[in-house]
């Protein structure tokens, strides 16, 4: 009988794989002596959020945004402006940056999404280029190509972040929040509607899914997440200029998504990590990193278009202790093997 064993709460056991990954991610960095490596990890975190937000569009709804760095830029500038000019605390600036990026996402999505998807794609590319030019030429607001300097570090209820390790824990928390919220979103009605739109838009519409509304909502959400990443970037690097948000940045995100795989929440993170680590690991490659990104896009699309881990969903739950099968046991299904 089970009662003789030590009983862990089922919730902990079922989520043991996820919890152990989080534990490793949280426990290892303090032992890294070279702070540069920690900084690389922080950047992986930023790009993981960005790639995840792109995945929301490309992987789940089947919309292609090829100017996603625009929303990243809006988040960064909005957060810097909100905290420097209005003196808002970081938490509010973060939320504000996300909201403003989402608002711009709405402005882009609303007129284009009632048309076929290709118009949105063209407009996102154009929006990225145009935003870059605006950031560069609007001297009085963005300080042009000189950029905004001395963005204050984040302070959370009075605690001011200073070391890179603290930034690492902050971005870890943000990535976990992103993954968790996206997981919840994608398993509820909203997520099922998005998947239905991707699989067959006509059928989705016939079963009563308001496709245009869901697409716009998904686009706004993706812009929101990108804005969050932008806000963190601004407060981490403390200096933002238009050069950090060129169309190349958008293309790098696409390469990460294409490499890691789309349609689940693990692929984008793996893609972001891999495409940051590969040029880091091979120093001579640094000069050729854009070649790597371009080559990755072409090769992945020709050879394995769903990406390394894409095309299926992975469960990080220990199903043996999952409550869903347990419920079947309680119903008394005789055909299932003894657990």
């Amino acid at each position, binding site marked *: 009988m089970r009662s003789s064993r030590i009983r862990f709460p089922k919730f902990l056991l079922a989520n043991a794989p996820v919890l152990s990954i989080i534990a490793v991610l949280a426990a290892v960095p303090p032992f890294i002596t070279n702070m540069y490596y920690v900084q690389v990890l922080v950047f992986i975190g930023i790009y993981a959020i960005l790639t995840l937000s792109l995945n929301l569009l490309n992987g789940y709804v089947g919309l292609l945004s090829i100017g996603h760095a625009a929303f990243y830029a809006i988040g960064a500038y909005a957060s810097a402006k909100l905290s420097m000019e209005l003196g808002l605390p970081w938490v509010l600036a973060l939320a504000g940056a996300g909201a403003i990026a989402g608002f711009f996402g709405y402005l882009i999505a609303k007129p284009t999404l009632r048309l076929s998807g290709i118009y949105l794609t063209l*407009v996102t590319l154009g929006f990225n280029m145009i935003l870059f030019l605006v950031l560069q030429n609007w001297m009085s607001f963005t300080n042009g190509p000189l950029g905004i300097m001395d963005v204050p570090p984040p302070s959370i209820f009075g605690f001011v972040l200073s070391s890179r390790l603290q930034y690492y824990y902050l971005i870890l928390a943000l990535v976990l929040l992103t993954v968790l919220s996206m997981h919840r979103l994608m398993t509820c009605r909203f997520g099922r509607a998005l998947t239905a739109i991707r699989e067959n838009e006509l059928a989705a519409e016939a079963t009563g899914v308001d496709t245009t509304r869901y697409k716009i909502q998904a686009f706004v959400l993706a812009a929101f997440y990108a804005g969050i990443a932008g806000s963190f970037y601004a407060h981490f690097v403390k200096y933002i200029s238009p050069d950090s948000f060129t169309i190349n940045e958008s293309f790098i995100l696409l390469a990460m998504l294409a490499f890691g795989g789309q349609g689940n929440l693990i692929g984008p993170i793996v893609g972001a990590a891999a495409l940051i680590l590969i040029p880091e690991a091979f120093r001579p490659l640094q000069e050729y990193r854009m070649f790597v990104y371009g080559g990755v896009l072409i090769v992945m699309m020709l050879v394995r278009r769903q990406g390394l881990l894409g095309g299926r969903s992975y469960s990080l739950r220990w199903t043996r202790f999952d409550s869903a099968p347990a419920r079947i046991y309680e119903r008394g299904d005789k055909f299932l093997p003894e657990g």
Partner: protein
Amino acid sequence: MPSFLFDQFINGLTQGSVYALLALGFTMIFGTLRMVTFAHGEVYMMGAYMGFEIIRLLYPSFLLALLAALVATAMLGIVVELLAFHFLRNAPHATSLLVTIGISILLVNLAQKIWGPETQSIPFGRIDQLGNFEIEIAGVYITFLQIAVLGVTVLLMLVLYFVINRTKLGMVIRAMAQDYEAASAMGVNVNVIYMAAFAIGSMLGGVAGVLVGVYYNMFYPTMGGIYGLKAFSASVVGGLTSLPGAVVAGLLIGLVETFSVEFGASNFRHVFSFVFMILILLLRPGGLFGGKEMAHTRGD
């Protein structure tokens, strides 16, 4: 008309005719394949560099530069078609789009490795050898380069009109644009026609590259980006599948831009034409000439 306005009108027309050429190439490709390429701006850039090398190293002749660019970009277009579309006929649209983006990244960085990231120019002595005279119309001087740009553009448009409407190849391309399945059932070799359409579209882009490069005498690896965007904008404004629409929209965008600079928005000229495109999308999604129906990609 005051002469400075006429002057600006000629400038806008020159600028617009280049946009029209680019948009024609883009529309040609979209109309036949029903797919978008994002490497169009980079094909244009490669054409420009081709002309640059010919004039700088070989012989200062516009014609020779244009011919070299035509050959080079036609081959480049076929390579793009093979990589991005030929092997991915049954794949979702996004797959081909991402390959063209990958190609555009590679081309920009290749140009950076070959010619360096800085702006290159042809020595002025060489430029003057191309032809150096001006015509005066109503008190406005029109330079040789402006005449060359306008002349080449008009000539190419006439050739294209002839090819599309009077030759067998043109007929097949029109048939494919209307219904590629029916065309293929009638015995059209779909793959060859796609390749031909791509080559023609790319050649138009390459010629535009030589014209702009020599006109401003500036060659740099990222020159394709904003011009590629102009090609999309003009193409969308024209209705994405209409060749006359692309020409009119290209000229219109060129004029709108030049006059917005004239009336004091020089830093935001590109913003202006982009907003113009969004407005057209809001008011008339089918474009100026596409009727009420908007263009669909394959599989839509």
